[in-house]
């Protein structure tokens, strides 16, 4: 039975028209799990609503 993350991977690969061969899936999933774990670390940190993102842009 497919895991929820596999369903998500299938849905996003279709939405973005990204190729995904079955042989690549374990590595893609493992990498995504790491990114989501690290993303959660960031998400858990409370920031003021007014916080500006950091990238530099000059017109």
């Amino acid at each position, binding site marked *: 039975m497919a895991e929820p993350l596999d369903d998500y991977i299938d849905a996003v690969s279709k939405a973005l028209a*990204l190729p995904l061969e079955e042989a690549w899936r374990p590595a*893609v999933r493992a*990498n995504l799990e790491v990114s989501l774990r690290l993303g959660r670390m960031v*998400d858990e940190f409370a*920031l003021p609503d007014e916080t500006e*993102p950091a*990238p530099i842009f000059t017109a």
Partner: protein
Amino acid sequence: MSAKPEMTASEIASAVAGRKMSALDATEAVLARIEQHDRILNSFTDVTAERARAKARAIDADIAAGRKVGPLAGVPFAVKNLFDVAGLPTRAGSKINRDLAPAKRDATLIERMEAAGAVLVGALNMGEYAYDFTGENIHDSPSRNPHDTTRMSGGSSGGSGSAVGGALVPIALGSDTNGSIRVPSSFCGIFGLKPTYGRLSRARSFPFVASLDHLGPFARSVADLALAYDAMQGPDADDGACTTRGLEPVTPLLDESISGLRVAIAGGHFQKNVFPEAVEAVSRVAKALGATQVVDVPEASRARAAAYVITTTEGASLHLDRLRKRPGDFDPAVRDRLIAGAMVPAPLVDRAQKFRRWYRAQLAEIFRSVDVLLAPATPCTAPKLGQVNFNLDGVELPVRANIGIHTQPISFIGLPVVAVPVPLEPLPIGVQIICAPWREDIALRVAHALEKMGAVAAPAPRGF
């Protein structure tokens, strides 16, 4: 006077300007050394011999005619192959980019180095699309560590580390998004400068993560690092993130006393996830500088996490179309990371960028009471080529993604760093000299003082 491999850029420039050695002789010596040793080191992907000879002859003609030459007159250098070199496709370590049309114009930093008299001799091996800390490359094979050729050069500027550490060239240029100058500097036992974000122009170099990409020099002495850095400074309208600050030359300041500077050891995250050699290296540098204070850098682990998220998503965005059209032509390890990066939800990326702003403010506060922070450049000395995992603080982790665990929280907010080599046995390892934004002068002065004390030095290559 004949050119010797151990000559620094400063010595070569002085000998050439003083007519003791010709620029052509200096160039031929380097080309011969590349021919002799690069079959083992594999640091070069392109050798631009004819271009180099033509440039060297032009410098010699200027000197013969009594015209003024630059501070790098006759100094051979090479660049990571993500820099545009006129006449070459900018491969950026990939197979795919080899199909690009040859670049029509050199990268800004090459133009500035050559304007100062330096002589480009070629382009250097690197990890595919710079998404790498190992120096391995499945298309071009790995560049090798000059102190033990069975070991990694470090990435992603692996060829730059290998070529300078192996004394093939006195100066190389590379890029650093998460540690790609500091990691090869550490593994190859050389000095590397990652300047403040926006200090040096990235124009006409192949990007990776726009909001984190930096370019900078490698050398075997701090004076050479400063010479190259000074030659490359200045605004550039061709890079939207490049500073409008004027030139701030460091070479004239290198010998200024560092006695008034407040130096501290970065604590917390930077004292975890380390092998004993990294602890020893930081300890030696701290002792030489008389530093005993430990300053906790708040939320550095989270900063590393945020850098990771921004990198994987901005990198995926850059390569989205190539992932669709030519997925089979990527290194599978890079492709699978990038595909996963494309799937990270957008709010996490936005939060990572907002956290970056918060974290920058914390470091700014620390730099109100401290001038220099010391931290490991890598958690260990160079691992064996092909090594997949290592054990950090009791946890088995992938080498490829975790070598930069101490560099990522620093480049995340663009702080200037000089990586200095501590010549431990059997392999060297680097320490980061970290300063407040725009204070490369302090980092270079401290590195220079450490070099004069003998606490840090680039060991002679002995692996080939």
